[in-house]
């Protein structure tokens, strides 16, 4: 089959590789019909993860059709309304791999599954404990082959495959694999109360879904921050957010002015470890990162903490993998803030959000700007990374 392989920093190649096969009894094989590139893939593409190996198959946002089921796939997953899986079913695949029976899965903390990361020992050395295995997301989270390919192997298929009802297109349901639930959980983590204002840094695909979700969860106002004109425009026109261009205004001051001096009730970092930094602080982080004294650039996190109103909540869907420097812990502590974060507990949100798509509350395809064949992946990564041609989200068709 054809698959998008990571070959080094800023280098992906579409290669012919062996077709995936069932390895464990609870595995399934999916023939992929649509797959997307995510901001999370850019952290790998940019070479920020030292546990990527040339030849690793990328991709964690994919869907398709079941072509083979292992002998141990159990029937009756309540998240599929108890219906058994069968060859030929159309399914979406959450990017977090979860066993369905450990302490964490039982508490719906799916992205913290104890049993899906075969390389848990590697993470434990750095993080103390290991989160769940993830598709196409470095050897730190299992080294699982990803879904930017023609076929993929899905472990724990009875827990990790969600059937899609007829009448919905791939483009309407593809983002249930990650960015819609991610934006939604990030908004839920804001602990929104009536009358609240939420400030969201980053108007990439995750930010766009976070804006929509914050309104669904009762936010009074959403203020969205970025510098890319078409992303800000989408936030304003599709998302009904007020917008700030961080290259044009002092974001902290502007937020204060817009909220009667109080600051936003909750703030969200939907940018993560590769935030673009301004001025001296931005240079400082670039130098520190280049010297490997700091692995992640927390410009947005710092700004958000300082901007947040006293007693407010900091929600962090943006990905960090290592260490940050100059964390304004004094502001965080003395203002009595709360931080909520994590890889998304996909399995918790997938069906309820699918129902919202069915009801017509939202059509997630609004973020798609580019549709390209899988063969064009090298070009697609460049377009998405550099936001060329007003790119916001790319879908690849195998």
């Amino acid at each position, binding site marked *: *089959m054809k*698959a998008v*392989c990571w*070959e080094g920093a800023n280098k992906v*190649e579409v*290669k012919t*590789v*062996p*077709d*995936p*096969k069932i*390895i*464990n*009894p*609870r595995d399934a094989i999916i023939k992929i019909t649509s797959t997307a590139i995510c901001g999370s893939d850019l952290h790998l593409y940019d070479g920020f993860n030292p546990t990527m190996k*040339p*030849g*690793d*198959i990328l991709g964690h946002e994919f869907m398709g059709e079941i072509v083979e089921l292992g002998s*141990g796939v159990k029937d009756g997953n309540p998240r599929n309304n108890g219906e058994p899986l069968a060859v030929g079913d159309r399914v979406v695949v959450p990017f977090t*791999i979860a*066993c*369905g*029976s*450990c*302490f964490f899965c*039982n508490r719906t903390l799916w992205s913290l599954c*104890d*049993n*899906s*990361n*075969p390389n*848990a*020992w590697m993470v434990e050395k750095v993080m103390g404990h290991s989160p769940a*295995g993830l598709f196409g997301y470095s050897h730190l989270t*299992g*080294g*699982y*082959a990803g879904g930017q390919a023609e076929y993929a*192997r899905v*472990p*724990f298929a009875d827990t990790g495959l969600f059937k899609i009802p007829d009448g919905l297109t791939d483009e309407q349901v593809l983002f249930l694999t990650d960015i819609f639930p991610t934006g939604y959980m990030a908004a839920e983590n804001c602990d929104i109360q009536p009358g609240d204002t939420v400030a969201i840094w980053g108007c990439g695909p995750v930010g766009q879904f976070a804006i929509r979700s914050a309104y669904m969860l009762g936010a009074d106002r959403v203020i969205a921050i970025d510098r890319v004109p078409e992303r800000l425009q989408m936030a304003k026109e599709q998302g009904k957010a007020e917008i700030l261009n961080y290259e044009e205004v002092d974001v902290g001051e502007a937020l204060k002015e817009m909220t009667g001096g109080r600051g936003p009730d909750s703030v969200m970092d939907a940018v993560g470890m590769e935030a673009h930094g301004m001025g001296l602080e931005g240079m400082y982080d670039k130098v520190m990162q280049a010297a490997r004294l700091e692995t992640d650039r927390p410009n947005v996190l710092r700004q958000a903490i300082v901007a947040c109103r006293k007693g407010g909540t900091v929600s962090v869907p943006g990905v960090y993998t290592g260490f940050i420097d100059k964390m304004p812990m004094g502001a965080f502590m003395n203002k009595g803030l709360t931080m909520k974060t994590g890889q998304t507990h996909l399995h918790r949100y997938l069906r309820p959000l699918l129902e919202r798509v069915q009801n017509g509350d939202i059509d997630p395809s609004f973020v798609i700007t580019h549709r390209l064949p899988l063969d064009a992946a090298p070009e697609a990564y460049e377009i998405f990374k550099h936001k060329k041609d007003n790119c916001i989200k790319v879908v690849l068709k195998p």
Partner: protein
Amino acid sequence: MNQPIKVEKTMTINKPAAELYRFWHNFENLPHFMKHLKSVKVQDAKRSHWVASAPLDGSIEWDADITEDRENELIAWKSVAGADVDNAGFIQFKPAPNNNGTEVKVVTEYNPPAGVIGAAIAKLFGEAPEQQIGDDLRRFKMLMETGEVATTEGQSRGSK
């Protein structure tokens, strides 16, 4: 005199002690999750024969006796005289607080004799015997909680 190698590791497994005890008590199940074991044959209620892989495609063998057995609580074993490598170990099962499964602790000890075999044993465990026992225990946990051991061995990729 070689130093004895002693390692211990604890993990919480989301299953009742009785189920874990029963599975482990049949030593023939151990090679399912202990990577360096080739086979274990149970000979009678007390004695079993163990074969482990050694470097250069070799293997080492020994007989072991169960030295203590408390139902659903503890199993201890020890190699009998004449083993290639003197070794002993025990596994202990303790209910975790609030019915959240069982705290499982494994302790193993090896007494490598001087010379070649001692070196081989050290190699067998690589740099980090702690890690080996930790990995074995994690595979036991995966098998008991999910019915299989998560792996990517044999999956497709773009280069070797």
